[in-house]
């Protein structure tokens, strides 16, 4: 209570003393409205204390109130804020912090409050704490020593069980720019990089560039952390770590190899800002690792430039055919292009632009066009977005004209566009002009010339000039149009036209002496120096075409020489010199006069030029050797200027980058490397489980027995990578060892060995397919195709017990092979073991009693089974997609046994190879009644993706959908070929959702039950 009471009293003192303080010392509040709000917020609170306190304080309160409401409300000084921060009321602290933050926002210095603020770093109130963090990050750099006081709080936060608190502690800790704590930061980042929570790992990735900018010495250990985080498989981390990579070690492209495919596959699920960064980085990566898909074209273009000049560049595709060695795109290159394409549909303009530049720099010419539509869409966005996109479109449209041709009209200009957008659209329209489209473009330009925006009109006139030079057919039309503009009322328009006409005339002056004459007349009216200079140059250059007018123009100009602008003066000198050389009779005196004027001009250049010309053209006694050649020097045929787009060759900068926009290399810009001549080894990107296993094996073999070794390695491989389906790892082991060992979970007997090589081949193929993710979809027929079954341990069931069978034991299992003779039949492997002392003869099936529709294909009769021997045979049963048992008699030469085979529902199907979108499509058609959903709690042993795959494939004969986002499996029933689609979506907290879509509802229901059982064990 005592403490509480102190506050108002001191506040009163403060108010009293504050009146004597200088205004300048109290930058807490500005005169604008914000003060009223905080006062009203604080007052009731304080008043409450005061009333509790008694009468003395009451007086103080009224005094304070008087001060506040009396209109002369003195701005409170920092002391007051300190008091509030020291109080133990959270609301006061909060109020103080809010005011401090408001000061910071206005750019006022609040650093002297640092000690008071930093004390509250461990405050319980979340908002106070957050605001303290904001303050701390802003001022810690200035108050390094005091900032250290807060560190221990964050260190404690780093150990908090709540991931969000850990993350925020790391975030603030790494934002404090104090060099002393670098080791602490390093340690924290390293710890966080291996945190359980992906969110904390993301924060760690964010912290890396912070630490790097604080101390570049830490680069090496930071690269290690980056390498570790790059291997992370969550989408949350991917964007941030690539950002860190770009900030710290963009040159270490080798770190990307192993993660390349993963990044490509994750890309679509990464948050949008991360996508931009990853795409830009992958563009650079791809330029170092793959071959130029347009290489042939470049060669041809160089070799036969003349012939091809002017022809449409899109023809490149056909040229490719001519090449001897056909170009084959690296599957990884294709993967990148394929996985980025959907992002063109992003709502984020930066993502769309990033994909567009990726296609521009990496895709074969024919494919770049797909990005045009999306880029045109961005033109509907904010004007800043338009500005950037148009800059890039301008560059693209020079290289790939055909790409935007169909969207020509989208670049038409509206009178409401800002000028900078108008000018860029003009640029694009000019680049897109071809013989066919020029007429409509020129018609558009005609409307633009009438615009009120004069800068835009000037740009239009230049654009017309460029169209005229690029497309010969329209040159005369353009020239006529421009000449008409010479009579425009606006001087700027006329001047711009003169400049452009000058350039055009230079191309074919002979035919246009009348235009030159017309322009000579204009010199009296036009005041814009550049235009005057252009006219004078024209007359001088083509004085032979206008022999009568030229000297007269010189006469007039000589009169006004002194009042002209410098560039005009230079051109007058030029004109004089040229006329002197061609027509010295008439102009000798005039030239002398002009040269004399120029001799005493104020400008160095003009005096210099005058001296130079005089020496050259006026014959003197000394007889300068050069004067003989004066005519050649001055009246040499000059090449016509080429009007080029300012965007030409800008594509050496990566499109979409800041450097491209400014056409200057910005700091930190990473050059886009040239394509390599020969492709670097593509195998560096393989993340084969096998490699690791082999490595490990070399080391570990001596210590472990074979079987142990195998299981261990399988495990370790799986924890390293869950990309492949379970079958890969086990089959890989199988393959590297000789096939003499028992299978992993040991359900199989030796007799099955004979089947193995066969299956293994299939598996190998499958593994290659799925593992390398090359997806030879094009090779496979498009329809859903049955594939070899996914391997899993086979379960053996008992058909006839040894005792019942009087020494003959019969077991069966479902081999999951397609039954050769009838595709609708399920393969059943039957294994006979003779435990009798005598041999069993004539083992055969007899009198099958089957449900209607069921069929059975008996195994060939086994003539003799010697005692102690085992034999395996195969029979086929068509169960008609039901789990009804197939009953039949098993006969030996002496006995008959009634037996029955009842298939688990999972065996009534065969796996189907399907891509994810196909899967989704099919799934979409099997909704409603055909869909069964269950939520389950995953069993202890099947937490990993791999375990789930194994369980599901063991429970049902289905194949995993490669690279699916969830665990998806596809199969079809044996008899009716109806699809069975299984999806397992794992959630946090160990639950998962199981969805089975199947036309046959009974099968679906039973399958759900089986898989549920398998997964929750």
């Amino acid at each position, binding site marked *: 209570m005592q403490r509480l009471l102190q506050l108002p009293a001191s506040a009163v003192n403060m108010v009293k003393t504050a009146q004597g303080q200088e205004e300048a010392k109290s930058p807490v509040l500005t005169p*604008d409205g*914000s003060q009223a*709000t905080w006062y009203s*917020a604080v007052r*009731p609170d304080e008043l409450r204390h005061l009333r509790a306190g008694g009468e003395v304080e009451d007086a103080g309160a009224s005094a304070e109130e008087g001060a506040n409401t009396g209109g002369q409300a003195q701005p409170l000084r920092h002391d007051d804020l300190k008091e509030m921060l020291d109080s133990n009321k959270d609301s006061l602290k*909060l109020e103080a912090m*809010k005011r401090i*933050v*408001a000061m*910071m*926002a*206005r*750019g006022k210095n609040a650093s002297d409050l640092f000690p008071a603020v930093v004390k509250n770093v461990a405050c319980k109130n*979340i908002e106070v704490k957050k605001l303290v963090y*904001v303050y701390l990050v802003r001022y810690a750099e200035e108050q390094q020593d005091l900032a250290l006081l807060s560190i221990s709080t964050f260190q404690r936060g780093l150990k908090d069980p709540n991931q*969000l*608190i850990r993350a925020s502690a790391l975030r603030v800790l*790494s*934002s404090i720019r104090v060099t002393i704590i670098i080791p602490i930061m390093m340690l924290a980042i390293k710890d966080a990089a291996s945190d359980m929570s992906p*969110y904390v790992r993301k924060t760690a990735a*964010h912290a890396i560039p912070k630490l790097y*900018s604080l101390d570049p010495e830490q680069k090496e250990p930071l690269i290690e952390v980056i390498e570790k985080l790059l291997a992370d498989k969550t989408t949350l981390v991917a964007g941030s770590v690539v950002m860190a990579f770009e900030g710290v070690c963009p040159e270490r492209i080798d770190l990307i190899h192993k993660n390349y495919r993963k990044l490509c596959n994750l890309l679509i699920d990464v948050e949008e*800002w991360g996508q931009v960064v990853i795409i830009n980085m992958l563009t650079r990566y791809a330029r170092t690792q793959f071959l130029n898909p347009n290489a042939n074209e470049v060669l041809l273009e160089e070799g036969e430039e003349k012939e091809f000049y002017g022809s449409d560049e899109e023809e490149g595709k056909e040229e490719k055919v001519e090449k001897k060695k056909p170009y084959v795109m690296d599957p990884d290159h294709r993967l990148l292009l394929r996985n980025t394409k959907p992002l063109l549909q*992003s*709502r*984020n303009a*930066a993502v769309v632009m990033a994909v567009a530049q990726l296609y521009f720099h990496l895709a074969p010419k024919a494919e770049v066009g797909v990005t045009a*539509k999306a880029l*045109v*869409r961005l033109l*509907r966005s*904010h*004007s*800043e*977005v338009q500005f950037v996109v148009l800059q890039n479109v301008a560059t693209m449209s020079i290289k790939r004209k055909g790409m935007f041709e169909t969207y020509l*009209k*989208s670049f*038409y200009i*509206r*009178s*409401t566009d800002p*000028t*900078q957008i108008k000018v860029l659209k003009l640029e694009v329209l000019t680049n897109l002009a071809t013989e066919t489209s020029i007429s409509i473009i020129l018609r*558009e330009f005609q*409307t633009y010339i*009438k615009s*009120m925006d004069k800068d835009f009109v000037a740009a239009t006139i230049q654009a017309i000039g460029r169209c005229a030079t690029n497309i010969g057919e329209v040159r005369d039309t353009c020239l006529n149009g421009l000449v008409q503009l010479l009579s425009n*009322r*606006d001087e700027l328009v006329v001047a711009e036209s003169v400049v452009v006409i000058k350039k055009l005339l230079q191309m074919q002056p002979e035919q246009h002496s009348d235009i030159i004459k017309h322009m000579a007349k204009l010199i009296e009216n036009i005041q814009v120096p550049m235009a005057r200079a252009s006219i004078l140059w024209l007359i001088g250059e083509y004085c032979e075409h206008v022999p009568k007018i030229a000297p007269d123009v010189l006469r007039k100009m000589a009169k006004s020489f002194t009042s002209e602008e410098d560039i005009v003066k230079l051109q007058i000198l030029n004109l004089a010199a040229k006329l002197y050389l061609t027509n010295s009779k008439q102009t000798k005196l005039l030239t002398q006069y002009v040269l004399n004027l120029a001799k005493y001009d104020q400008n160095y250049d003009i005096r210099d030029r005058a001296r130079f010309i005089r020496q050259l053209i006026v014959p003197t006694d000394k007889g300068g050797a050069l004067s003989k050649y004066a005519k050649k020097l001055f009246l040499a045929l000059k090449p016509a200027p080429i009007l080029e787009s300012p965007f030409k060759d800008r594509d050496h900068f990566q499109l979409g*980058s*800041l*450097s491209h926009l*400014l056409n200057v290399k*910005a*700091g*930190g*810009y990473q050059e886009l490397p040239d394509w390599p001549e020969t492709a670097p080894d593509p195998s560096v990107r393989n993340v084969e489980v096998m490699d690791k296993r082999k490595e490990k094996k070399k080391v570990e073999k001596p210590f472990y027995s074979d079987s142990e070794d195998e299981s261990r390695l399988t495990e370790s491989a799986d924890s390293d990578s869950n990309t492949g389906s379970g079958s890969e790892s086990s089959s890989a082991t199988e393959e590297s060892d000789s096939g003499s060992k028992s299978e992993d979970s040991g359900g199989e007997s030796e007799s099955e060995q004979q089947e193995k090589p066969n299956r293994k081949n299939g598996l190998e193929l499958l593994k290659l397919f799925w593992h390398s993710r090359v997806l030879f979809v094009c090779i496979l027929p498009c329809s859903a195709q049955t594939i070899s079954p996914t391997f899993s341990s086979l379960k053996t069931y008992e058909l006839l017990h040894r005792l019942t069978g009087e020494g003959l034991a019969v077991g069966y299992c479902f081999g999951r092979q397609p039954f050769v003779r009838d595709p609708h039949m399920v393969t059943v492997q039957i294994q006979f073991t003779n435990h009798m002392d005598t041999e069993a003869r004539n083992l055969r099936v007899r009198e099958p009693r089957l449900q209607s529709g069921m069929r059975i294909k008996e195994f060939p009769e086994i003539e003799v089974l010697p005692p102690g021997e085992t034999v395996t045979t195969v029979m086929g049963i068509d169960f008609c997609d039901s789990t009804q048992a197939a009953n039949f008699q098993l006969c030996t030469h002496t006995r008959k046994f009634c037996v029955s085979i009842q298939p688990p529902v999972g065996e009534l199907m065969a796996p189907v190879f399907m891509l994810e*979108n196909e899967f*989704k*499509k099919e799934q979409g058609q099997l909704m409603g009644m055909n869909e069964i959903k269950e939520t389950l709690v995953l069993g202890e042993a099947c937490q990993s993706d791999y375990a789930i795959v194994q369980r599901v494939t063991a429970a049902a004969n289905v194949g995993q959908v490669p690279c699916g986002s969830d665990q998806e499996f596809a199969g079809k029933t044996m008899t009716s070929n109806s699809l069975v689609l299984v999806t397992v979506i794992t959630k946090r907290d160990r639950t998962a959702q199981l969805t089975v879509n199947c036309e046959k509802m009974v099968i679906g229901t039973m399958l759900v039950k089986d898989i549920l059982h398998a997964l929750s064990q």
Partner: protein
Amino acid sequence: MIHSLFLVSTAGHIFLEKHWKSVISRSVCDYLFEAQGKASAPENVPPVIATPHHYLISVYRDRIFFVAVIQTEVPPLFVIEFLHRVAETFQDYFGECSEASIKDNVVIVYELLEEMLDNGFPLATEANILKEMIKPPTILRSVVNTITGGSSNVGGTLPTGQLSNIPWRRTGVKYTNNEAYFDVVEEIDAILDKSGTVVFAEIQGVIDACVKLSGMPDLTLSFVNPRLLDDVSFHPCVRFKRWEAERVLSFIPPDGNFRLMSYHVNAQNLVAIPVYVKQNVSFFETGSSGRLDITVGPKQTMGKTIEDVVITVHMPKVVLNANLTTNQGTSTYDPVTKVLVWDIGKLNQQKVPNLKGSLSLQSGAPRPDENPTLNIDLRIQQLAISGLKVNRLNMFGEKYKPFKGVKYVTKAGKFQVRT
């Protein structure tokens, strides 16, 4: 990436600054002021300005320049898109994005900016996550704040949305009335020439949604005629693969208002222009005057009425005043900005709105040789001009029956008639 952010009013007053790395002096904004001085209008200030040590990337919105200061190479669109996202967040939080509202809520603004960027790299930009962490101000809460002496803006719960696979949706959403509304809004962008023939026309559309559903609903929206859609872009919640395969929008929606998709209608289909415009604007060679005569009428409206028709004309500078009469609506001419606004309202078949009269020009000035363009604004309720129709909306994943609604509106986008 983004080093600092300055908010600058058009008058050149820097009213907010925030730094994510070392502090950069606010004097960098002088380069912006310089560019602003050169430009004729704020829209013409280049979005990217290079200064000796920094680059300024700015967007101009609601009379505020959002200026980001960066030091190293970064895709400019990345920054621009982010700045717009910031502006939209303010809009969302404070109802408007203005200097006054930002100043009033400076603490919330600061808290938001702190969450949106970490070390200059975007961290949380989804409105749903932000709202979970920082509560938007409401009248009720500000009243409570004044009385109790300040409750917190910051959410007491930890934002778990950030960790989920669907970062755009809040967890634990609960409504008593579960409802989902979809607005199909189409805009006609067109340029008509003097004679009324179409130079260029296209239809752009958006589907804006307001979804207030409890729990984690999974929605599927299908169209009768999805083929009309030529080019689309989606909110991140839409499953792109389903769209590719089946042309249905399948998504777990964010909570509240959001833009589900925007689309462009296939250009081959001819665009029905709903109005015709006959105009005659001429300036006389002598007498410094001119004449204006505009008639607007409905054309292809598919039986719907055209509402809210407004014609805006930017007159040449020499037009001093306009003396106009109209048989429908009101017309005003602002001699300062030289903008003529004719607010017509509804178009009906019987009476064709007409505006005519004389224009007085500055005496002595030459006759303007350009003719002003007419910008037309209109609105047709209950019609999507492209013919796009929503087929059905299904919900999975939740038990209750939501209330569903779809509304169609056609508007004029950038609709210009050249004269």
